[in-house]
């Protein structure tokens, strides 16, 4: 055992002994003689009043999203979820990542309807009140932007906190009505093979989804983590398309048109298409592949003292459930299996943990996730070989964090 850990252990034993002595009444100090200096301030005055809606603390330790946006079109950009400052698997609504193409629209829900038309028996308008009368279901699911982690394609490792490299992924419990149920209500004709989904935003976001997915597990979500959607997450309704890239999880849902073919919008054909090394691009590459990242320790953090550290991170896959996560502390030379924290849910973030003892030595931390279909997260070299360095989307490569002798953590390629 290291000196540092031994010190902590001895301190713990000493304090425990003191506590036991006080509890047994061995101390000669009576309650009235307790020095004022050791009475917590919070014991001596009433606390703050109730609040209608709780707010996070506003001191410097309170996590925030970082915003990267277009200076000329400020509503075009992203805000990153600070994964390195969060724990567990559910992202607080105020810290769920955002990707907007032209700002957050303010939709008047009293005038709003979700309209379903196209190759249907009848064209229907569902008001918010009507939607709420349908059977509801909840699903804990991650949403990940197709462009998340694209810094890993770059020639040199970007030095930024984990959340500002990988934080275009978040996870929430989404509640709403099955899209398949609403499409059945309208009656999909046999020639209906795709749905064209229109957002009400000022960027004219429109995408095409295959009817099989639309009828499968897609939810018209009205609630996020129990509360009505916030404007930035699509109020009054958005699509949750479990496991598929963020762009198809349309916010500010306007209409759904059943069609015999995709519309081939700019978002279907130009953005969110995967350019390969040979100059050919792949479109409708919807599924987000198996991936993981260590959130602690991670860049910008410094290990505080040798000895026990917990390595902790997040794993997810658009293809079912995470089955296994391995962690390396020597840059991939050897691996140990991490514990998966329950519950491990389908198409949701999974927390993994591994105890580790650090002894002031250089280390390179990596995590490697597997999903239930046997897919495994590739190394960066394998991904670049497969996709080419001209790629932009769908980067699920293993990430490497170097720990220096000083305890400082940085982003490296190995």
């Amino acid at each position, binding site marked *: 055992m290291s000196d540092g850990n031994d010190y902590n252990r001895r301190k713990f034993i000493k304090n425990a002994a003191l506590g036991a002595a006080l509890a047994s009444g061995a101390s000669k100090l009576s309650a009235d003689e307790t020095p004022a200096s050791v009475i917590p301030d919070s014991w001596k005055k009433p606390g703050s009043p109730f609040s209608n809606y709780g707010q996070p603390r506003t001191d410097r330790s309170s996590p925030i999203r970082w915003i990267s946006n*277009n*200076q*000329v*079109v400020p*509503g*075009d950009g992203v805000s990153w979820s600070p994964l390195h400052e969060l724990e567990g698997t559910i992202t607080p609504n105020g810290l769920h990542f955002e990707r907007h*193409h*032209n700002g957050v629209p303010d939709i008047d829900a009293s005038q709003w*309807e979700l*309209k*379903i*038309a*196209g190759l249907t028996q*009848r*064209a*229907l*308008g*569902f*008001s918010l009140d*009507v939607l709420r*009368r*349908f059977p509801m279901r909840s699903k804990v699911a991650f949403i990940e932007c197709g462009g998340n982690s694209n810094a890993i*394609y*770059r*020639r040199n490792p970007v030095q930024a906190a984990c959340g500002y490299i990988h934080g275009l992924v978040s996870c929430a419990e989404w509640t709403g009505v099955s899209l398949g149920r609403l499409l059945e*209500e309208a009656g999909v004709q046999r020639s209906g093979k795709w749905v*064209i989904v229109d957002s009400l935003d*000022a*960027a*004219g976001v*429109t995408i095409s989804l*295959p009817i099989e997915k639309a009828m499968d597990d897609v939810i018209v979500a009205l609630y996020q983590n129990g509360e009505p959607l916030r404007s930035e997450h699509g109020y009054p309704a958005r699509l949750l398309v479990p496991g598929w890239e963020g762009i198809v999880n349309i916010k500010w849902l306007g*209409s759904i*048109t059943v*069609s015999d*073919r995709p*519309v*081939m*919008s*700019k978002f279907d*054909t*130009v953005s969110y*298409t*995967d*350019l390969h*090394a*040979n*100059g*050919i*691009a*792949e*479109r*409708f*590459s*919807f*599924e987000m592949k198996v991936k993981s990242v260590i959130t602690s320790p991670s860049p910008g953090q410094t290990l505080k003292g040798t000895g026990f550290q917990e390595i902790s991170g997040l794993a997810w896959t658009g293809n079912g459930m995470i089955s296994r996560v391995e962690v390396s502390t020597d840059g991939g030379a050897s691996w140990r299996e991490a514990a998966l924290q329950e519950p491990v849910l389908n198409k949701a973030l999974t927390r993994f943990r591994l105890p580790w003892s650090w002894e002031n030595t250089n280390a390179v931390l990596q995590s490697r996730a597997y999903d239930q279909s046997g897919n495994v997260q590739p190394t960066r070299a394998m991904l670049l070989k497969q996709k*080419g*360095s*001209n790629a932009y989307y769908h980067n699920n490569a293993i990430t490497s964090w170097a720990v220096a002798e000083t305890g400082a953590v940085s982003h490296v390629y190995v």
Partner: protein
Amino acid sequence: MLLCYLLVASAVEAQSSLARELAPLERLQVENHIYADGQGLPVGSGTAQQGLTLYANLCASCHGNRGQGGSALELVGDRALLDSEFPDRGIAVYWPYAPTLYEYVRRSMPPDKPYSLSVDEVYSVVAFLLQINGLLADAEITVDKKFLSRLEMPNKNGFITSDR
């Protein structure tokens, strides 16, 4: 009697919905998409010559004078860069369908005033974009539904569809 009641009940269930049936015009508005083959493009036209001024006033500040060098994505790209670390996704280099250009300009541009252009203005801007991409023989050519539907884009076959 019971059979009769059940028949009525199931008929009612099959026909009534909690949702509101859309009026024919509302239905058309929802279905008003512009497809890759030009279906849905409106009646109207424009030329690159007419588009030049619109582009200069509304687009150049972000996209550069001739589709390059601005803060926004390149509109004119270099095909040789497609396999480079920073590939261009210019119109001639990347966009597979010309009608999509109309649809995107109409709905999304300019970002501070989407939906502000008339049909003829959108056709004119699209004509100018085609011209600076070398896809228009001359600036006088009338660009309309027929023209955009028939225009074969250079990267039309540059895509594969993902297996799912």
